[in-house]
């Protein structure tokens, strides 16, 4: 009965802040699980790495992959301090990963021998390096350790296969949470159906909305007012000046689209709050007053 410690080393999905808004529940997690969490969040060091999935730098946790097997008994204190030092967004994925790993640890049998672990570690390392997709945020030193459950094959190939399958199923679960109304559906085929449906719906919405925007935006406009509205409406001066610098001298095609609507939306997002329609009405009212004052 081979036992391995399982570290999930794939970078967490960028949707974790959307999906797991729950605060970090301070469960009594053992030290090894804490280490799992810490090492499952890859350290995104260079700009090239962050560009792969930019939300990953939210989950930036210091990487100490070499320590993982040296200290088996990790203190809960260090883990909680490091997790508390991250922002709240980190707590979401940590919690779920904890739950996943707690589940796993309950299943496996406890027969650890350090030499055996070390020996099989190297085997898995080779197979894991083989199956790695070459994603830059996973440094080559990382390796995945899999716990073989009772009655399952224990050679390195099947273990690597199982790791891959579990990765895929993890992703599918995340996608399941993202696509609305997909909780009840089980099985890959039906889930893929829902996802395809959702993507098609979103694409159709984009088509429809762009048609709507094309039909509602008026054509004639005066270019002088663009600069005025930009400088007056934009809260942050840096964004406003950058736009005025790039302002074309010709008459714009989508004037009200650009200046009123998009800038309002932009300002709304900058304020960080949800803006109701009344606010929009107020601003547009102010806009129209400025329109009327110019001949």
């Amino acid at each position, binding site marked *: 009965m081979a036992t391995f410690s399982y570290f999930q080393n794939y970078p967490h999905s960028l949707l974790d802040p959307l999906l797991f808004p729950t605060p970090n529940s301070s469960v009594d997690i053992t030290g090894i699980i804490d280490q799992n969490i810490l090492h499952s969040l890859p350290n995104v060091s260079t700009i090239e790495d962050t560009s792969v999935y930019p939300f990953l730098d939210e989950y930036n946790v210091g990487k100490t992959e070499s320590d993982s097997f040296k200290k088996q008994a990790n203190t809960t204190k260090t883990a909680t301090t490091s997790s508390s030092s991250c922002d709240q967004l980190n707590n979401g994925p940590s919690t779920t990963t904890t739950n996943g790993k707690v589940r796993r640890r309950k299943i496996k049998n406890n027969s650890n021998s350090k030499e055996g672990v070390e020996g099989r570690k190297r085997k898995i390392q080779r197979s894991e390096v083989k199956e790695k997709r070459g994603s830059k945020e996973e440094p080559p030193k990382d390796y995945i350790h899999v716990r073989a459950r009772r009655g399952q094959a224990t050679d390195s190939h099947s273990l690597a296969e199982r790791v891959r399958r579990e990765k895929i199923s993890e992703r599918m679960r995340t996608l399941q949470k*993202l696509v609305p109304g997909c909780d009840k559906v089980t099985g890959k085929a039906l889930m893929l159906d829902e996802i395809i449906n959702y993507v098609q719906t979103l694409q159709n919405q984009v088509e429809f909305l762009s048609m709507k925007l094309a039909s509602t935006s008026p054509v004639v406009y005066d270019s002088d007012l663009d600069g005025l509205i930009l400088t007056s409406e934009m809260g942050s001066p840096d964004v406003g000046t950058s736009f005025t610098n790039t302002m074309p001298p010709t008459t714009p095609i989508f004037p009200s689209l650009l200046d009123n609507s998009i800038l309002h939306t932009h300002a709304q997002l900058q304020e960080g709050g949800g803006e109701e329609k009344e606010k929009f009405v107020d601003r547009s009212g102010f806009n129209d007053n400025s329109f009327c004052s110019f001949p």
Partner: protein
Amino acid sequence: MSTYNMVKQEFIKKWITTLHMLDCSVEHPLNVTERKNAIKLSSDIAMAAARSGSTVWSRALISRSGNKTANKPVARRILKKARNRLKNRCLTLRRNGNFTAKSGVRKRTELLKSLVPGGELIKNKDYLIRETLDYIVYLRAQVDVMRTVAAVDSVTGNLTNDNK
């Protein structure tokens, strides 16, 4: 939710830029369809440029938009800018003609590959799902922004009509 807001902000910035670039060099399209195509093109490019990273779908989307509007110089300019940002790593799309998928999952994977831009080039199923995830987030951001803009646009349209 601040990350999602950041996505939307990034998309808005890029969209304004692309719309301005469209304004510069395209003569006034009188047709609603042409305007719609211009808006869609600009927002697609903005979405892909906002995601300026090494995702397959963003590069594939930009190259696909380039193939569609190869004649328009403005599209070329936008694409040139976006390409430079992506360090000239655009992929060329080659569409598969026939789907001969045996099982249900296989068939649906092929269909998903056809939906996500650049999906056909992804061989690893795990990576495909990751790309889809990313693409869905940005699609959603695009839809949300456009919906808000359309709502504001209708409101301002009503107000300007009232003031006249």
